[in-house]
């Protein structure tokens, strides 16, 4: 296409500067606002899901099929080292780790509180969660194995609540395999700064073998947790794990934390309603601009057709204008929102009030994370651009029916 067409469309766009600025500006803010809103929503939930997955459920977890409904030691599974090694080779699986979880009563001195004990393989978990960097100074992540007592790494808030320091002893009482009472005695190796208060108040990590021993579950685990690659398709990973563990259930995080998923879906549905109204307003603004533009230029269009411009050629020219108008707003909006989000990604907003409480209730850091993913930009930009391209169909109709003599006289 000749450059003159672009020149023509571009200059026509600026015949009414104020109107173009307002129209492109509304597309700009629509994209900006929509991207920020979606980015924060995905960011908040993405972080929630990621935190929960890392520290507790995993992205996909293989469990005994009854464990989800009734999480007791009886609904555990026998750990098969060969199959675990197979699972680690699955495409898209970043880490596959056995875990043994149990709710117990923990006490130290005269203080006690319910806690979640998680038996882990320290090295594997450290590679996923960087626990060693999060140990409060004075303590350590799991130290040298010592014959006397098994070690525990305790959430920092829990440690403070029970008045624990490294070297202190933690007692646990819970239920073991086949209902036997399970008593545990652990030496505190270190306090773990988990970043989010609820988990920090609740979690006690011990070595898997020690947990198996304490709960009389030699050779058994409550789950095999898989952390997926960020780029991986979770359902593929789930399918592969299911094939590898045919007698167990391979569950997605969304099945393991259904209320979290429902909250996310509710929030997204709310967003879509807001976005729909926003787009409706922008769409009508765009349409009214195109309407005005078309009625102002009747005479010009009449003359252009008179001197031999095909109606389709003319329609293409006007379509290019409307598309450029949309692109201008969408393009600048996408460009502007990017550094804006990058800034808030680097300096997250600290939450206050109700939102803060809500986050702590979910065991999350009370910040407003953002997600910077191309699909969020593309989706919003595509919707606004699609709107411009749809609105641009109106001039096609007008030009198809334009009466050149009437138009030239106007």
């Amino acid at each position: 296409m000749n450059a003159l067409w672009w020149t023509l469309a571009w200059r026509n766009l600026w015949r009414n500067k104020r109107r173009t600025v307002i129209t492109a500006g509304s597309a700009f803010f629509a994209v900006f606002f929509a991207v920020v809103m979606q980015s924060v929503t995905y960011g908040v939930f993405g972080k929630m899901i990621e935190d929960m997955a890392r520290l507790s459920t995993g992205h996909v977890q293989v469990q005994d099929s009854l464990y989800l409904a009734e999480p007791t030691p009886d609904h555990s599974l026998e750990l098969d080292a060969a199959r675990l090694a197979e699972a680690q080779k699955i495409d898209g699986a970043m880490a596959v780790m056995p875990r043994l979880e149990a709710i117990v009563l923990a006490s130290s001195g005269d203080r006690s509180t319910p806690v979640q004990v998680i038996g882990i393989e320290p090295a594997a978990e450290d590679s996923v969660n960087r626990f060693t960097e999060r140990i409060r100074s004075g303590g350590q992540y799991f130290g040298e194995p010592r014959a006397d007592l098994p070690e525990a790494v305790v959430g920092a808030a829990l440690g403070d609540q029970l008045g624990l320091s490294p070297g202190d002893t933690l007692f646990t009482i819970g239920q073991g395999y086949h209902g036997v009472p399970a008593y545990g005695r652990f030496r505190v190796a270190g306090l773990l700064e988990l970043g989010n208060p609820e988990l920090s108040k609740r979690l006690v990590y011990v070595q898997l073998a020690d947990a198996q021993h304490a709960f009389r579950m030699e050779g058994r685990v409550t789950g095999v947790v898989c952390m997926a690659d960020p780029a991986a398709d979770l359902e593929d990973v789930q399918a592969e794990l299911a094939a590898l563990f045919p007698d167990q259930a391979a569950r997605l995080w969304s099945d393991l934390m259904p209320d979290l998923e429902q909250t996310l879906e509710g929030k997204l549905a709310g967003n879509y309603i807001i976005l729909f109204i926003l787009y409706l307003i922008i769409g009508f603004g765009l349409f009214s601009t195109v309407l005005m533009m078309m009625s102002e230029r009747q005479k010009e269009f009449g003359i252009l057709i008179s001197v031999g411009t095909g109606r389709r050629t003319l329609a293409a020219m006007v379509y290019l204008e409307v598309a450029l108008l949309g692109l201008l707003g969408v393009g600048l909006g996408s460009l502007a929102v990017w550094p804006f989000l990058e800034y808030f990604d680097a300096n997250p907003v600290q939450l206050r009030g109700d939102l803060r409480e809500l986050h702590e209730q979910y065991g999350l850091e009370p910040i407003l994370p953002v997600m910077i993913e191309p699909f969020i930009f593309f989706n919003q930009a595509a919707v606004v651009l699609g709107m411009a391209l749809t609105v641009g169909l109106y001039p096609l109709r007008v030009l198809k029916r334009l009466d050149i003599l009437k138009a030239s006289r106007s």
Partner: protein
Amino acid sequence: MNSNQQPVITTRGISRTYQQGPVDVRAVDGVDLSILPGEFTALVGPSGSGKTTLLNLIGGLDRPTAGEVVIDGTRLNDLDENALIQFRLHHIGFVFQAYNLIPVLSAAENIEFIMLLQKASAKERRTRTQQLLKDVGLEKLGHARPTQLSGGQQQRVAVARALASKPAFVLADEPTANLDSHTAESLLDVMEQLNRDEGMTFVFSTHDPRVIARARRVVTLVDGRIDSDEA
């Protein structure tokens, strides 16, 4: 003029009737007209006599309710809307009363636009645009936008644009109506010169006596009929 030549415009009994409320207005009423190549013809008559309507019919902008129009051997009645647009592009140059340039394009770009529609090569467009600007005496104002030009200059650009497609003839509906008499004279100078030097056929409507005086043939319309035809 050589009478053996084929006419470039022929109308046979063309009429155009407009419905105005309950009455039919015969804007053009049974006109037979032949224009030979190289003519410089004025269409005159009082306001409402049908000059514009007749030019529109000849130019394929409007369709007769009766009769036929033959241009360069093609019967316009047979062409559909899209074919007619293509036909206009390649055979007919138009100059309208005023404000008929694309306002956002420069003088040169306005001229080039027509050749772009004709899919002429970039090189041809450039050289021909320069030549045409020179022909109408505006070689220094190619970059100017219509709003930066006087009315007379704009009409000269319009003439250059009309010629850009290498048409068989140029139709001009009251091209001087919005010009003062001095500017009108110099536009006529340009048209006359193109007629003389390049043999370009012009048919223009006017009711300005000074413009009429410049024509070599004067066709007078009254109530949509040819009242007189003097060479």
